[in-house]
């Protein structure tokens, strides 16, 4: 869609407590424009819980249930059933969770809600660490990244949450990035057309945790996509399809070298050339895999 047609209505009021240059609040600001006024937001513990500001004030102009860290998915199930019981049908229930609330402590509740086909959009705003509590590693932290609990770099690869969600046979899974607002809004518009659990994982660069100067937030998000490290795709009813932005990058020569992305952030400062090469190679291998599955059914819907 054209950015010009994006709703002018702001559901995030001025005076948020977000860090300067925060992509998470930007992504939410854009997402709410696509979701609209009739939205109930569940926010498990994370940056967004704090971004709302301090009681008795709030900066979110939609009803928000801030919730226990582990239970975002369960809360959504409860709200959906509660609304159904009261005969209310035109409200979108959305969960806005971070890495932890999605892939770690929140995974069980999310899995349960998805299996129950809870009619909601579950957003993972992925800044690749537990940023709110001080940049500790999560299962969504990428390989080799520094964090306060992986000071010499994470040994394990990033958990593949989108594929895990697709394996639940949900109707719609997508990856997105705050640097591509039109694409993000398109994903949300597409998700809204389905009934059941929709999952959208949005890469949101974090200047505080990724260690870069705040004005680079959008640029770094772009590099993540342009290097191929963060492919934008959808899995719609089990069928995998690269989004237009990423489809252009099927040819490795069209992709930026990963070093441009890695060297732009302080959290990868400790990487030597060998590690960078390793990451370049695994990105190339990943894309060979993506090109094989592009346009095919990867999860049988039955």
């Amino acid at each position, binding site marked *: 869609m054209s*950015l*010009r047609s*994006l709703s*002018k209505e*702001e559901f*995030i*009021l*001025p*005076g*948020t*407590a*977000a860090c*300067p*240059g*925060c*992509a998470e*609040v*930007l992504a939410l*600001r*854009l997402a709410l424009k696509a979701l609209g006024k009739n939205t109930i937001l569940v926010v498990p513990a994370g940056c967004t819980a704090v971004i*709302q*500001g301090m*009681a*008795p*004030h*709030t*900066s979110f102009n939609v009803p928000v249930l801030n919730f226990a860290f582990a239970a975002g998915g369960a809360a959504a199930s409860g709200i959906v059933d509660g609304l159904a019981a009261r005969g209310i049908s035109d409200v979108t229930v959305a969960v806005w969770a971070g890495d932890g609330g999605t892939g770690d402590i929140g995974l069980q509740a999310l899995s349960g809600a998805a299996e129950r086909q809870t009619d909601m959009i579950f957003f993972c705003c992925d800044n690749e660490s537990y940023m709110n509590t001080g940049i500790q590693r999560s299962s969504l932290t990428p390989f080799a990244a520094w964090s306060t609990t992986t000071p010499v770099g994470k040994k394990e690869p990033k958990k593949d949450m989108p594929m895990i969600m697709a394996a639940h046979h949900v109707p719609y899974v997508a990856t997105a990035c705050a640097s591509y*607002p039109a694409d993000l809004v398109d994903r949300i518009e597409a998700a809204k057309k389905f009934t059941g659990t929709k999952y959208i994982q949005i890469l949101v660069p974090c*200047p505080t945790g990724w260690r870069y*100067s*705040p*004005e*680079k*937030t*959008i*640029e770094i998000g772009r590099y993540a996509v342009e290097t191929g490290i963060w492919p934008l795709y959808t899995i719609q009813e089990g069928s995998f399809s690269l989004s237009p932005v990423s489809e252009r990058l099927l040819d490795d020569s069209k992709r930026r070298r990963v070093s441009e992305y890695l060297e732009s952030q302080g959290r990868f400062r400790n990487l030597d050339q060998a590690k960078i090469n390793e990451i370049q190679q695994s990105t190339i291998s990943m894309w060979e895999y993506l090109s094989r599955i592009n346009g095919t059914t990867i999860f049988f819907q039955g």
Partner: protein
Amino acid sequence: MSSKDKGWKEVSPAGVCWKSSSTYLTGDWKTYKPVRDLEKCTKCLLCSIFCPDAAIHWNKEKGDIEFDLNFCKGCGICANECPTKAIVMKIE
């Protein structure tokens, strides 16, 4: 709706909040502020879309972009993303 026995402050039920955060002028945080070169600006509004704080508005009557410095945190994303480099960040 709220408790009849109150502390010295009024208590909303379960501490639910509905007062706007806009009394908290986060513009105080900034070190740098955006300054726009009107010659270079094409009014594409990318700055407005990318501002995390929604501090850049389109003023319909004036037909122009406005920066709300009360809430601009000086992150510089607008300057970095402007396709014509019409915005520079200057010390406050």
